């Protein structure tokens, strides 16, 4: 069972998608049909509790709509097995708003896990990549500690950095700047911009409470509600 041939994101589309966490509970998304803008930095906005994080999970195919479809290009992701979806999965980087690090691995091991698992590079090279990130983001002294032994901000940073470790074409970041500090946030923004300029990174979707960095990234806004998505081309929070 091999994965699909995938040559980049050309279209993201929800079609009559409905999603609720519990069967019978109030749906978070109900009959949602929309095409999503690509090639931009998109700030996903909405009222508190309107399901921004859930929207990001649907976008990254971490959860599936109970009914309806989510198409990536012409591929219906709701019909695909884990193995079939894998080539697309490896092109999506995802960072959580909290948690998401493997508790029994060190920060360095968390960073290099996808590289080693998918045999992207040799162990020495993976460690070297992680070491460079540790130096750039100033956590060299903590890189051999486990997540429970470091601050929440550093855990968040590692989760964000891991989203970029496979050089994804699309990143989906759930509140990446909260708790990491201004210096680190600036470096994350710079990293996104550099990867964009290098042409590796093409599509960014993020939810954030930190408007400064959303502005810094020149994000455009995607306003979501239960059954509609409104795209505002003007810059977010400007």
């Amino acid at each position, binding site marked *: 069972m091999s994965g699909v041939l995938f040559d980049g994101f050309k279209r993201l589309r929800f079609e009559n998608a409905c999603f609720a966490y519990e069967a019978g509970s109030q749906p978070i998304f109900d009959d949602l049909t929309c095409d999503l803008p690509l090639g931009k930095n998109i700030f996903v906005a909405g009222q508190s509790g309107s399901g921004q994080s859930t929207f990001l999970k649907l976008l990254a195919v*971490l959860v599936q709509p109970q009914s309806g479809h989510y198409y990536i290009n012409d591929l219906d992701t709701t019909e695909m097995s884990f193995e079939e979806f894998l080539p697309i999965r490896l092109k999506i980087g995802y960072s959580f708003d909290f948690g998401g*690090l493997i508790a029994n691995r060190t920060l360095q091991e968390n960073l290099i896990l996808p590289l080693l698992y998918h045999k992207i590079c040799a162990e020495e090279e993976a460690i070297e990549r992680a070491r460079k990130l540790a130096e750039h983001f100033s956590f060299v002294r903590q890189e051999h500690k486990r997540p429970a032994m470091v601050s929440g901000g550093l855990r968040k940073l590692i989760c964000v950095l891991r989203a970029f470790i496979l050089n994804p074409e699309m990143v989906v970041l759930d509140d990446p700047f909260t708790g990491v500090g201004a210096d680190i946030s600036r470096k994350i923004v710079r990293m996104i911009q550099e990867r964009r300029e290098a042409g590796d990174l093409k599509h960014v979707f993020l939810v954030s409470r930190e408007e400064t960095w959303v502005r810094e990234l020149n994000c455009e806004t995607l306003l979501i509600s239960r059954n509609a998505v409104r795209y505002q081309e003007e810059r977010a929070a400007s």
Partner: protein
Amino acid sequence: MSAQQDALERQSQLSFWTLIERLGRPVTNTFAYTWQVWLMIYLSFRAAFYDQAQGLRTVFGVVSAQIYFTGWQAMPLITVLALATGGIIILQSSLQLSLIGGASMIGNLLIVVVVREVGPLITALIVIARSGTAVASEIGNMRVNREIEALETMGINPLSYIVFPRILGGVISVLCLAFYFNVIALTGGFMVARFIKEIPFSFYMDSLAQAIAIEDVGLFFLKNGFSGFIIFVVACYQGLLVKQSPHEVPQVTTKAVVNSIIYVTTFNLAVTTLWYLNQLMRLGLVQ
């Protein structure tokens, strides 16, 4: 009057259907539970088979860790319990043995009680108490900390990375522990027999060799292998049932223990019953 009768009739009909529903719900729940557990087993084995990226090294790492925690670390406890079990059986039966054939029956008694019945059951109960709880709470906590989702985001199938190696490691551990339990229990039995009846080692070994049959090997693998399988499948399944909250972790852990004990004892009872029915049929006592 007729309205009252109608009301009574409706009530009796209602209580009849309520009764049917109450009786039926546990049955349908059990079927649904069994179906979901088998689905998880199928998906995890399928994922492990189809996973191109997951090399033997990754699987071996998790399997060996599971064997270390489940098998190696349980050995002191198993040693104490096995020695005590073997010794107690000989102590308790020494009087009865002299009534039904003396010391020559010692091998039969130990093979029947220790190897066929008590060994698999005590080993399974220890593994449930130590490792079933550990696996269920570990996976539950992984769910709460979003580690399972994190694995998915990295393109790592949690079923092949977490579930499959734990089941495999668990089955191997239970088989090894059960073998170790049998050896130590038979040693404990010999020590007590030697002490109270001065039975020589060669006589004891002869007695065991005459009592053990080739079917016992099959029975050993069947009972212990499936017990290990049941324990780790149930523990993994219950752990994965956690949705978001830490308060669910102790609940699923308790459920894992209760379900494992029920399934393992029921399975052992069923195998023993079929085994002895087969023996009776071979002897011509049952047609």
